[in-house]
């Protein structure tokens, strides 16, 4: 993974000093609430329902075991012994004290971490495929490009006060595991007409109040121009994006109102100027960044059948919580953070310590955060999977549900977030209680349930095969259900099935949707595909045919 050099270290330390001074001025009354708000937000610090929330950047989801131990230590000493992983591969601490934040940032800087631009109207953490570098369906490793974008976007002088937040995702594989079509900018590694590697650039995707799938701005961009092209997009957005209405300030609204052709024309015109500005990435720099992501020292191993002759529990875990690796003898292993009685994405300080130790032992000391709020060991020897499972199982980290109904994406909801209309974590709990039969879950197959506590859509409900949105109905928590959404390369937005339902009816509503699926599916057909084939109607009819019994 990328390692800081003296320059990166100096910069994060200078940021800590800057923020320490800003916090001091705020506490001394020299900065108003509003003035400080604009400064703290660019450092990942929100003031939430109970306490400040600090969001720490995990660039494109990569963590060393040393970094994970530092996060564990912060959770233990400054928080209440846990952290929460987000859909954008970051971690959030929900209970730090404002006056402690400069010290937390200083401790993070010690392990090459920070909270720079994890909130506020600026370029956020660049996210990517959690299987980058190990998945067989990859054209090229996206991580060197993510690092290039990370550096370019950090303290970008021109784009720190954008109309609204700005999120970039980069992928290099056939399957899109980074939800790039619902990002402000999606960068896809593709081959050009001459076989040369370059990028397809999309813009204007996003969720929130107005969900939109991103559109292609340029179908092929030579590699050396990546930054100048991004700079042109950002400049057009910074100058022309709406600033009069926060709900209409994302780039998707600008792209939609101009139309993709006119937006493209303006970007290309601006690019004439930005591409002359020293942003060209030369081959030496590409090679240098690439060198940080060289494959680890894999052993020459045959493929084996680790599940053969083992217990049913291990076989289920191996099937659902591990995935194929491009190197023979290895598997990528998911660490499920979706245990039924735990808030999705949450992890305790002790679990973080354990995962760090296991990463050292089984996966070259590296851990990845997935967009679906789980962790991943990318490089596990197949023959060590059983031992690893035993350790994870003891720590409650081996729930064999990756890709199934209970591997839900879920925002913090009303329990923590000051924006939320309704709870999410408690609904996840109800769903887990209702669907606790693994044979049934496995029979349902691949199913993405995504849940947000409000229109801001942090839980990506629009692109869930089943989406659940919390709404406030005269002070009561109700839930609107959508079906047919997807976040991958075939992204689509879910369709609302009908009137919202009270919290207690959510599990039964889902059960009825699944009944229709089980009755009408074709062999090997996923829930999503059945919905696409049949449309919403039969599902809707079943859900609303009879009231849910009390």
């Amino acid at each position: 993974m990328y390692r800081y050099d003296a320059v990166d270290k100096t910069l994060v330390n200078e940021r800590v000093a800057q923020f320490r001074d800003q916090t001091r001025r705020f506490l001394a009354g020299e900065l108003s609430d509003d003035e400080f708000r604009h400064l703290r937000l660019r450092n990942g610090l929100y003031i939430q329902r109970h306490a400040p929330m600090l969001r720490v950047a995990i660039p494109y989801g990569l963590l060393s075991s040393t970094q994970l131990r530092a996060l564990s230590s912060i959770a233990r000493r400054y928080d209440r012994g846990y952290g929460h992983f987000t859909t954008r591969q970051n971690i959030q601490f929900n209970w730090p004290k404002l006056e402690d934040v400069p010290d937390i940032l200083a401790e993070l800087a010690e392990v090459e971490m920070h909270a720079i631009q994890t909130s506020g109207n600026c370029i956020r953490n660049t996210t990517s495929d959690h299987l980058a570098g190990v998945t067989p369906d990859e054209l090229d490793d996206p991580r060197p490009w993510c690092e290039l974008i990370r550096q370019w976007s950090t303290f970008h002088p021109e784009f720190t006060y954008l109309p609204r937040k700005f999120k970039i995702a980069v992928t290099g594989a056939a399957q899109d595991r980074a939800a790039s079509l619902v990002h402000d900018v999606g960068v896809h590694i593709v081959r050009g007409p001459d076989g040369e590697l370059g990028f397809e650039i999309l813009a204007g995707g996003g969720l929130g109040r107005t969900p939109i799938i991103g559109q292609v701005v340029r179908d092929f961009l030579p590699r050396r121009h990546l930054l100048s092209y991004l700079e042109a997009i950002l400049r057009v957005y910074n100058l022309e994006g709406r600033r009069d209405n926060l709900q209409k300030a994302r780039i998707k609204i600008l792209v939609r109102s101009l139309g993709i052709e006119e937006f493209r024309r303006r970007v290309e015109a601006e690019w004439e100027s930005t591409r002359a500005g020293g942003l060209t990435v030369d081959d030496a720099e590409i090679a240098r960044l690439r060198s940080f992501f060289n494959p680890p020292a894999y052993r020459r191993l045959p493929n084996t059948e680790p599940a053969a002759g083992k217990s049913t529990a291990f076989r289920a875990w191996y099937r659902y919580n591990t995935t194929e690796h491009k190197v023979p003898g290895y598997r990528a292993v998911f660490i499920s953070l979706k245990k039924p009685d735990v808030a999705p994405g949450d992890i305790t300080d002790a679990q973080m310590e354990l995962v760090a130790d296991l990463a050292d032992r089984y996966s070259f000391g590296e851990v990845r955060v997935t967009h679906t709020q789980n962790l991943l060991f990318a490089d596990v020897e197949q023959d060590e999977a059983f031992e690893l499972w035993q350790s994870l199982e003891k720590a409650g980290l081996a729930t064999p549900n990756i890709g199934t109904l209970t591997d839900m994406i879920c925002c913090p909801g009303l329990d923590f977030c000051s924006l939320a209309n309704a709870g999410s974590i408690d609904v996840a709990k109800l769903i887990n209680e209702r669907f606790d039969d693994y044979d049934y879950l496995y029979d349902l197959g691949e199913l993405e349930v995504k849940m947000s506590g409000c229109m801001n859509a942090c839980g990506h409900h629009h692109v869930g095969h089943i989406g659940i949105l919390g709404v406030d109905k005269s002070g009561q928590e109700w839930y609107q259900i959508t079906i047919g959404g997807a976040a991958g390369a075939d992204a689509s937005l879910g369709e609302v099935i009908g009137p919202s339902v009270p919290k207690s009816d959510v599990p039964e509503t889902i059960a009825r949707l699944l009944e229709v699926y089980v009755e009408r599916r074709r062999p090997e057909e996923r829930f999503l595909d059945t919905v696409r084939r049949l449309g919403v109607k039969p599902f809707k009819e079943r859900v609303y045919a009879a009231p849910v019994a009390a």
Partner: protein
Amino acid sequence: MPRRLLRDGQIVEDDWSYAAEARGDAAAPLILTFTEWQNERDAWIARGGRLGVLLPPGHKAELLAPDISRIELIALEFSGPSDGRAYSQARQLRDHWKFGGELRATGYVRRDQLFFMARCGFNSFELADADLEHAASALSTFSWAYQPSNDAGLPLKPRYRRPDIPASA
């Protein structure tokens, strides 16, 4: 009391006046609103003397392109703590239209934004007195930059030119 501001790293008394503040000295350096400039451009040129223009946020930088060599000062306005349009206007004026005169930040200008403003090509800053004393040090908040920009006058080391980078410490 004359306005004090930070120009090229020094606290100085402002030798420019906005048209609304002008005290009758016909030849004194004058900053016009964009409308004043646009409505009576020829008359202002005929008047002689040093001319500046305040370009509001939301106006395209290219509006000043035809007169870029005649105008000695361009003031860009930050309308509030979240308004970042002037950063891009500044980059366009400096990089694309090659404006070489004084580029002034006005409106919501605080020391915490100064470093970014300077990197976008601003070289003078109208700040409240409380911030003015600290402003020069804000220009050295960071000693490196990850991206090329318009850094004239900043004590910055460019991170993006690889050979300058020392080996990892």
